[in-house]
């Protein structure tokens, strides 16, 4: 069964934005993880944004990636969440409070509350 998944990144001097598209699960999570090896090279002061608004599906494998990224990039990670399916997953897993989630129109450079 063909599963569509891709990741693209957008860079500015201060923000590295990573945008996964498609279905994020145990088979595709490694693709997203690899994308962050480049982000780590970018320097200590660059804010890393994971934009989930284009995901059609995500399960706990995706949550685990996000939790690991938050450990790996403390205070530098921001998660933008837009799809209803991901919203629901964050709520029923209880993981929402453990991730630095910001709204799509927020400035990622604003310090977390």
């Amino acid at each position, binding site marked *: *069964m063909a*599963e569509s998944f891709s990741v693209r990144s957008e860079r500015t001097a201060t923000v590295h934005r990573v945008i996964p598209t498609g*279905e994020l*699960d*145990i*088979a595709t999570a490694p693709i997203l993880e690899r994308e962050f090896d480049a982000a780590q090279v970018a320097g200590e002061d660059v804010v890393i944004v994971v934009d989930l608004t284009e995901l059609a*599906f995500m*399960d*706990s*494998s995706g*949550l*685990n990636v996000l939790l690991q990224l938050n450990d790996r990039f403390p205070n530098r990670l921001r998660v933008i969440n837009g799809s209803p*399916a991901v919203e*629901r*997953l964050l709520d*029923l*897993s*209880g*993981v929402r409070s453990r991730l630095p989630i910001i709204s799509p129109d927020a400035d990622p450079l604003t310090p977390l509350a």
Partner: protein
Amino acid sequence: MANEPRTGDRVSASWQSGFDDAADDGTASAEVPAALVLFETYLAVPESVAAARTIAAEFATRAGASQKTVNAVKLAVSEAVTNIVAHAYTDTAQGGLIHLEANLAPGELQVSVSDTGRGLRPRSNGRGLGLGLAIIGELADKVELLQGATGGLRVLMRFAMPASTTES
């Protein structure tokens, strides 16, 4: 009971020697055999997770489930299959199989995921069975862990359905 209220913490573990589908509401004698049945077998590899959840969601749609229930079935199956696949990768003996079964019973959609041997256990990477199984517990109206026919574990998930979809 098929229409028990949803609660957030309904994961129960029981050990039985089979897959007891019988309704426990005392109306079993009036039930008609389920006309809609799904039985699929997959290799325990990561790519099977998407295949299984897609098939399960299509089955739920055909069964007349609401979009909310279809989404719940899709995510719950993804979690259950992921757990087996994660074990297949950490265990030395690979090549296991995964069975996905579903049927439309009176008042509920029953979906089960089972493996052929090692069973659902906490992951060796420390993330634990917790997150995936907790999500399943939130999604399904009832979850049971059963011993499968081949010695593995079976997670049986029940999703309440409107009576009109199961009385045709």
